[in-house]
């Protein structure tokens, strides 16, 4: 699979750590403090936004894996979809947590029912339901098929979340990236790009690790069946 060509989980993790640590240092000692009302709390942006992008990327991977599973019925795509949703949900929960902290610091509230936050919450709830669905179906093939169909339907909310601030600009979230370019200083953009690369590498490292775990679980189950058959 294409993920294997990226390198081992350990190499990806080291790469991610290098980019993220550099990005973290630059965020505090190179990028200027935001001149708007956000002030120092804007420093959260350098990790918060890449985590959000990676959460949506993980759900996009799950969507592609779901389509591929329905086309080919290969269990490897079911495994990829499962781990992608799992990691997407982890990243989403982190976005919610860091977003709430940032919201309290910048706007004085932990939560606001504005378009971006609300659509992201819906994404979290939808993908949490994905696991409930998987738990309720016992037959492996049916479970994989239902999960794939659900992942495709749930993905409808992902572009809505991404474009929420563009469709409904009245919310609290500012639109940073526009068709005319990024609305931030060059040093801020450079720092953001580093953390974005680091976070994507981290997502790839975690994906590789979790896929290896799922493959080993399958191998272990097969070995157990062999052992029982021969006993």
């Amino acid at each position, binding site marked *: 699979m294409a993920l294997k060509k990226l390198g081992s989980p350990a190499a990806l993790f080291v790469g991610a750590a290098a980019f993220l640590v550099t990005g973290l240092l630059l965020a505090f000692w190179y990028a200027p403090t935001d001149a708007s009302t956000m002030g120092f709390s804007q420093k959260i942006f350098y990790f918060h936004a890449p985590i959000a992008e990676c959460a949506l990327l993980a759900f996009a991977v799950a969507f592609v894996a779901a389509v591929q599973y329905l086309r080919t019925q290969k269990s490897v795509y079911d495994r990829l979809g499962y781990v992608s949703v799992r990691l997407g949900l982890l990243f989403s929960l982190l976005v919610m*947590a860091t977003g709430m902290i940032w919201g309290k610091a910048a706007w004085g509230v932990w939560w606001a029912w504005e378009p971006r936050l609300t659509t992201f919450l819906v994404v979290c709830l939808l993908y949490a339901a994905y696991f409930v669905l998987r738990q309720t179906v016992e037959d492996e093939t049916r479970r994989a098929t239902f999960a794939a169909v659900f992942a495709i339907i749930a993905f409808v909310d992902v572009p809505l979340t991404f474009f929420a601030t563009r469709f409904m600009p009245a919310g609290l979230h500012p639109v940073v990236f526009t068709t005319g370019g990024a609305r931030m200083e060059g040093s801020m953009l450079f720092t953001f790009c580093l953390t974005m690369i680091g976070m994507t590498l981290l997502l790839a490292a975690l994906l590789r690790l979790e896929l290896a775990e799922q493959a080993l679980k399958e191998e272990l189950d097969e070995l157990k069946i062999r052992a029982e058959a021969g006993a």
Partner: protein
Amino acid sequence: MSLQEAVKYVAGAYGVILVAFFASYWSAARRLRSLERQVRALKDALDKREQTTAGGEDDV
């Protein structure tokens, strides 16, 4: 908001991120190692059993 207060929120956010990612990578790596051990042990046991069975058949 004062700088001192903002620093607390920023530190809190980065703390949550670091702990979550470190914990998820560490726990995934630990689960993987444990599974690798189990697979290796089971493979060894099966190989031994197959050798014993083959040896028994040769004796006959």
